[in-house]
């Protein structure tokens, strides 16, 4: 019998705000333990939460980017559970009236366009972080109360690859929208996996297995692959699966049942009495709509169509929004957008990684790239010299034209100068001239190289070839 898997993902993303969700403590990764804390995020007696308007804005913006519905009314609720990293022993979250509902993400996976439904994206708060020692644990609440967006997908993902592509697309969208930095190393994105297996053709879903708190996409991929194989094996052997929560052990590369003596969850949700509901006005939604950016997939399609770039180059550009923005400025009036892209993807990226620069600290401007491509295209300089000019512009921020003039790098196409170089080379290399006359094509290349060297690389290589050939074969 053939089996198929169905995956749903709950992705938690830390929002990019200055301060935490309910208090003025800084929303910043790291720091000495328990130094970004105050009575509010430590859950001291008597404190009250006040909602961060920017977090609400980013939530709605995410909703817009994920094609979600924006309800007329939203509210916060308390989800009650005891855990040492939860400073109030309840989490403030959105239960039955979230800020966004029912959307979808479109992305490419295995050369197909896929669409996965988004059940909801709701706003909640992060918890503190525990460290474990030999006999005891310790809790740091610096992270407690950081605004957290929970994005819940419909169980519509049908392969591990598709899950992985979905996660990457989601991440790119969130970075694009300025919603989150999505820095995995800093734990800004975490996800819970739901996976079930059923025989192909069966309508109802299989028993749902949940794997919580994956903090890397590669881990998620491994866990899903393992779990898929495990479930299929159980079913093939005639076994039955149970609905349960399993834990991924990265070191062992396996999931383990959390066969818990722990009590069944009973979260006792109730509307948060300390926070008022939200009934956003149209004007507020409109102001947020102004921040909606083009999504990566749309951008990719546009680059391929408008600039004729190959898929691979496009993906590289699109995955880095600031570089993509730089590219668009450079390519704006260019007749050779592909040459512009090549210069950015090859030369610029190499220099940037070597010098550890980000797009924001570059001296070389998009207009410089445009100009450089134009210089080559018009024959003002040849492509070898272009490399030299690029490096000089990168270092100095001076215009390519200026560098060419300053260093006298303009291509030599003047025929009397080229004739003179060629004559000199022909005279100095009788053996090669003879070889060429005897039909050895390599000899001409050697002679060409000599002319280029003599001209310090500035001679127009095409012209040099023509002149040499003419002079040697028809003296």
């Amino acid at each position, binding site marked *: 019998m053939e089996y198929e898997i169905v995956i749903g993902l709950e992705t938690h993303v830390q929002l990019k*705000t*200055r*301060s935490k969700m309910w*208090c*003025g*403590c*800084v929303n910043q990764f790291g720091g*000495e*333990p*328990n*130094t*970004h*804390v*105050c*009575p509010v995020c*430590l859950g001291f007696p008597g404190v009250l939460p*006040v*909602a*961060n*308007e*920017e*977090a*609400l804005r980013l939530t709605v913006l995410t909703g817009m980017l994920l094609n979600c519905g924006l309800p007329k009314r939203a509210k916060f609720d308390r989800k009650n559970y*005891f855990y*040492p990293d939860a400073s109030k022993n309840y989490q403030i979250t959105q239960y039955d009236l979230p800020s966004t509902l029912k959307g979808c993400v479109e992305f490419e996976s295995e050369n197909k366009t896929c669409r996965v439904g988004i059940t909801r994206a709701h706003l909640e708060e992060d918890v503190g972080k*525990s*460290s*474990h*020692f030999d*006999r*005891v*644990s*310790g*809790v*740091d*609440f610096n992270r407690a109360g950081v605004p957290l967006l929970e994005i819940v997908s419909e169980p519509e993902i049908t392969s591990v690859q598709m899950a992985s592509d979905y996660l990457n697309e989601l991440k790119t969208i969130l970075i694009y929208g300025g919603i989150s930095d999505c820095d995995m190393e800093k734990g800004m994105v975490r996800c819970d996996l739901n996976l079930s297996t059923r025989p192909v053709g069966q309508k109802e879903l299989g028993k749902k297995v949940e794997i919580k708190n994956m903090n890397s996409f590669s881990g998620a991929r491994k866990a899903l692959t393992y779990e898929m194989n495990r479930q299929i094996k159980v079913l093939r052997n005639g076994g039955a699966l149970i609905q349960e929560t399993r*834990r991924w052990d990265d070191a062992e590369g396996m999931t383990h049942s*959390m066969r818990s003596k722990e*009590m069944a969850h*009973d979260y*006792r949700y109730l*509307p948060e*009495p300390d*926070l*008022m*509901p*939200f*009934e*956003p*006005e149209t004007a507020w939604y409109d102001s947020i709509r102004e921040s909606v950016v083009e999504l990566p997939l749309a951008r990719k399609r546009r680059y391929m169509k408008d600039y004729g770039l190959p898929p691979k180059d496009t993906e590289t550009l699109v995955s880095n929004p600031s570089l993509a923005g730089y590219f668009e400025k450079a390519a704006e009036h260019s007749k050779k957008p592909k040459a512009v892209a090549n210069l950015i993807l090859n030369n610029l990226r190499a220099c940037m990684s070597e010098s550890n620069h980000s797009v924001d600290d570059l001296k070389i401007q998009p207009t410089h790239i445009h100009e450089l491509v134009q210089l080559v295209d018009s024959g003002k300089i040849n492509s070898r010299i272009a490399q030299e000019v690029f490096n000089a512009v990168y270092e100095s921020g001076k215009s390519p034209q200026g560098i060419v003039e300053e260093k006298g790098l303009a291509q030599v196409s003047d025929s009397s100068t080229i004739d003179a170089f060629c004559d000199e080379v022909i005279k100095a290399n009788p053996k090669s001239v003879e070889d060429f006359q005897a039909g050895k094509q390599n000899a001409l290349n050697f002679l060409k190289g000599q002319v280029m060297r003599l001209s310090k690389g500035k001679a127009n290589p095409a012209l040099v070839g023509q002149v040499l050939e003419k002079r040697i074969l028809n003296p």
Partner: protein
Amino acid sequence: MQEINVQYVAELARIRLTEEEETRFGGQLSQILEYVDKLNQLDVEGIDPMTHAVPLVNVTRKDEVQPSLSNELALKNAPASLNGLFKVPKIVE
């Protein structure tokens, strides 16, 4: 009479009760639940639940950073601490 599974609820609330308390609370709570049962005399069909005593909406704060407590002050009331952390018995998942 409404029976409460006091032991289950106390565990949910993370409160250890003595056997004597469990029995006594059981009786008292049943009596209270019997009393509150009178709410069922009312027809509340179509009535909106009242969560707040005031009808405010859209109350937010600006995204501005305010000073935090020092680690010393944060831990000052802690029953036990360790390297700037709140010390707890080992958490096992």
